[in-house]
């Protein structure tokens, strides 16, 4: 058996097998199983990435059955980049969770502890499948699997508020999935195929097909929480246990964005759904401003970080109006958005994890009551500072590389207003991040901070490492560039660098 050929399946199966073992192993041994799975998953993902770099995009037909009937997996540079992201952040989150759940419950495993590991690995497996799937129906299946496991993970937090948030999340998730499925049905009726590559060839001017695709895109925007469809995100991401918040904000929203990217760039011919791309770009710009202002008004760290996700997701959608121009503009914008997705994932996961440490150590995450944190918990403060630099888009962070690329794409296309949005977004991000950092730097005054919980190295240093990765991500841009060049769409557009 040639192992290399089956890499895409291995990437999906590895976390799934881990999830099953973790379920059987019981709460005491589940953390170890999960860590082992996370470490083991890195290898096939890296291998797959190297293969894509060497040989270009590959298709894999499960059981030898090709489209239109069989299940097809597609691995190109884009999916390899996202798979790698999920693997690295996933390992960080897993390591952190082993410390977090010990801190949370002392010696005796408490509520949520046992199920977390299985659900988390299951979600990981579904995400990997979502990133690799090559037909639009299987996207629906994966979206449902990711969505349901995510909702279950949110409910692992104790109390009524997480339950309320999870119900809202479930509602949004199912609404999105059903809308998507309706769209797929219309599309199938019009074209008779579900495979993405075949769709790309057979899409013609057809009201049914256009309506179907419009519904699918709308559903994906809801799942990615693009303003004004973000209503479910802040409460769900803030109420979830911190390792879950990190995975949701950093990885899950990127999954549905990835599919949107595929539909727009690989499936739809240029000019399809006329005007939708500009509308989405405008919504992205509104998201940047609106989400940032909301983040500025929040009283709690986790809500601030969650609204920051609403804002940062907006940058991703600036790609679509720029993509119309094709050529170099498209390549630069796509690379910029890819770098932004990676940088945001590292920074956002580190901030949610650090917020979890804050909750454990000080018993709350009310910003106003945390003066002196830079003194009491310098590692937490440093984490927020480094991750904040990425949010603001200042050098040498990944956020800077992303904003530079998006802004230069905008200026090269002549549509300078997108560049202005990027700059304003950076300033607003500085405002909300420095509001937090200023409190950390303030003198504690007469109010001593309560110090609670057991400290473990993992819960403090894992977030710092992720934040440092986002801070120095510009160094990884050459690798990301090569991955972007190995993706289907850029190959058509003629490479990233002329």
């Amino acid at each position, binding site marked *: 058996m040639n192992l290399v050929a089956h890499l895409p399946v291995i990437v999906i199966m590895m976390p799934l097998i881990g999830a099953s073992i973790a379920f059987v192993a019981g709460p005491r041994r589940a953390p170890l199983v999960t860590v082992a799975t996370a470490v083991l998953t890195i290898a096939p993902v890296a291998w797959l990435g190297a293969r894509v770099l060497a040989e270009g995009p590959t298709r894999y037909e499960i059981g030898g059955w090709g489209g239109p009937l069989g299940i097809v997996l597609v691995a190109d540079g884009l999916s390899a980049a996202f798979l790698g992201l999920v693997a690295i952040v996933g390992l960080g989150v897993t390591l952190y969770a082993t410390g977090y759940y010990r801190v949370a419950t002392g010696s005796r495993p408490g509520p949520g502890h046992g199920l977390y590991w299985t659900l988390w690995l299951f979600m990981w497996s579904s995400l990997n499948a979502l990133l690799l799937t090559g037909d639009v129906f299987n996207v629906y299946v994966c979206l449902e699997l990711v969505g349901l496991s995510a909702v279950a993970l949110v409910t692992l937090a104790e109390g009524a508020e997480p339950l309320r948030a999870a119900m809202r999340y479930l509602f949004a998730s199912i609404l999105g999935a059903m809308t998507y499925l309706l769209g797929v049905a219309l599309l199938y009726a019009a074209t008779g195929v579900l495979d993405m590559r075949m769709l790309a060839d057979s899409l013609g001017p057809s009201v049914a097909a256009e309506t179907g695709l419009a519904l699918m895109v709308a559903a994906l925007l809801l799942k990615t929480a693009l303003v004004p469809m973000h209503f479910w995100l802040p409460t769900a991401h803030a109420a979830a246990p911190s390792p879950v918040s990190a995975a949701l904000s950093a990885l899950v929203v990127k999954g549905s964005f990835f599919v949107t990217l595929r539909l727009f760039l690989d499936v739809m011919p240029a000019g399809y759904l006329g005007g939708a791309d500009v509308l989405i770009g405008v919504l992205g710009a509104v998201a940047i401003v609106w989400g940032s202002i909301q983040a500025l008004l929040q009283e709690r760290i986790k809500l601030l970080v969650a609204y920051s996700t609403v804002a940062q997701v907006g940058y991703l959608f600036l790609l679509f109006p720029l993509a119309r121009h094709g050529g170099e503009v498209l390549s630069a914008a796509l690379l910029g958005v890819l770098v932004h997705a990676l940088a945001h994932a590292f920074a956002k996961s580190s901030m949610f994890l650090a917020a979890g440490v804050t909750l454990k150590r000080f018993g709350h995450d009310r910003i106003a009551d945390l003066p002196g944190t830079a003194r009491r918990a310098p590692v937490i403060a440093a984490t927020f500072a480094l991750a904040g630099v990425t949010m603001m888009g200042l*050098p040498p962070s990944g956020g800077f590389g992303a904003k530079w690329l998006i802004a230069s794409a905008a200026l090269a296309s002549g549509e300078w207003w997108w560049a202005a949005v990027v700059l304003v977004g950076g300033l607003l991000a500085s405002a909300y991040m420095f509001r937090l950092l200023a409190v950390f*730097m303030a003198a504690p005054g007469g109010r001593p901070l309560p110090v609670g919980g057991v400290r473990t190295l993992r819960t403090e240093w894992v977030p710092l490492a992720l934040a440092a990765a986002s801070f120095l991500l510009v160094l990884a841009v*050459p690798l990301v560039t090569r991955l972007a060049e190995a993706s289907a769409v850029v190959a058509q557009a003629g490479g*990233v660098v002329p």
Partner: protein
Amino acid sequence: MTVWLPVLLPVLVGVTTFLLGETRERLRVLVNLAGAVLSSGVVIALVVRAYDGAVAGSSVEMLPGLALSLEADLLGLLFSAVATVLWAVTLVYAFGYMAHAENRARFFGFFALCIASANGVALSADLLGLFVFYELLTLATYPLVVHSGTDEALVAGRRYLYYALSGGAALLLGVVWLYAIAGTVPFTPGGALGAVAGRTGELRAIFALLAGGFGVKAALVGLHRWLPGAMVAPAPVSALLHAVAVVKAGAFGMVRLVNEVYGPELATSLGVAQPLAAIAAITILFGSIVALRQDDIKRRLAYSTIAQLSYITLGVALCSPLAAVGAVAHLAHHAVMKITMFFSAGSLAETHHIKRLSALDGVGHLMPATMASFAAASFGLAGIPPFAGFFSKWPLGAGAAESGQVWATLLFVTSGALAVGYLAPFLVRAVRPAAAAREPGAESDPRMLWPIVIVGALSLVLGLLAGVPGSPLDWAARAVAPSYAGWSPW
């Protein structure tokens, strides 16, 4: 690779300082001093090589097609040498000043990171690198401004960020725009935009964005309001960062922008140099006049800094070679003189709790060495020969007259008179008999006193040796000459 060391060594010092933590005082002192001395040595070695005409350069790829490039040319090295050598001096002072302060690890760590960023600004070979380090400088300075954590400090820090980050955004837009129309723009004496000189409208807008971005740290009038407030920071920060590294990064950016991005000829023909000169001239008058009315010592010095920084901006904006030499020399001269004054102000506040000019009566009898150094720096700042300041103001005024812009010469003379006006009260009050009985013979801690005496003496020595090869004046002439084809200082 050597050219990276002035950036990487201070980064290493900073990170080590953070990791050592609050308690390991001796090791911290050792690491910082060793790092500063070593960095100074590297910079001096680079200077010696650059004097021989060998320019070291190195770059790493950052974004596709875009590299982060450093180059050790004479102009950059002048700023780098000033920042690095004065860092070593300031460290000694700071160890005395901060002896009983809190959060020293954080303080010295970020201090080193500031120097690393300043050296990056100095040695960057193009606008992209300069922008990157310019922003890092903002970030590394913020924790120092809010060091005390008081409400006053937090407010000052917030204002600093408003100005600095908005300026950074303008700078980013300008740089991206320029790169979009002209590609990578390496600093080239005499200008690098010949190929796109026809796109006048865009070039004017980009110049405004870039000059606005640099103008924040160079404290041009209207963009200056963060600087007096930032004086809430500890004295070593005011001395090294708000008189040398941070504010000079803005002024230095102006020099690069006018001389080596646009070039004096293009800047004049586009009509962008003249408005910049006008704003700088207004800033000089504004800063000098407002300084006259300040009673708080550090605020008076801050407004003086605002005025003096615009000497540099005005000097390059006049687009006259001799004035540009004076401007670049002033970058070094003003640094030495103003750091002396802030050191002295810090000693007065720390040793005798004197923070106001009106409380200064008779202090010359208490701290003769400190006040003598202060006097040497004051004479220099007022432009009295043979102190250092004279040797930058003379070429500034002469260059303005030579290029037919006599109004600027008159302005430099007027501003010199105003400088006497805002500095003389310090000296007059210091030699008066004390109003109330004070403890006699109370100089500050030797760790603070000696740095003051050294930089105070430099204010005189740099003036006396102004004609010697290797002096800031000679150095500035060599650094500026290539920007003006057909002009030679000799």
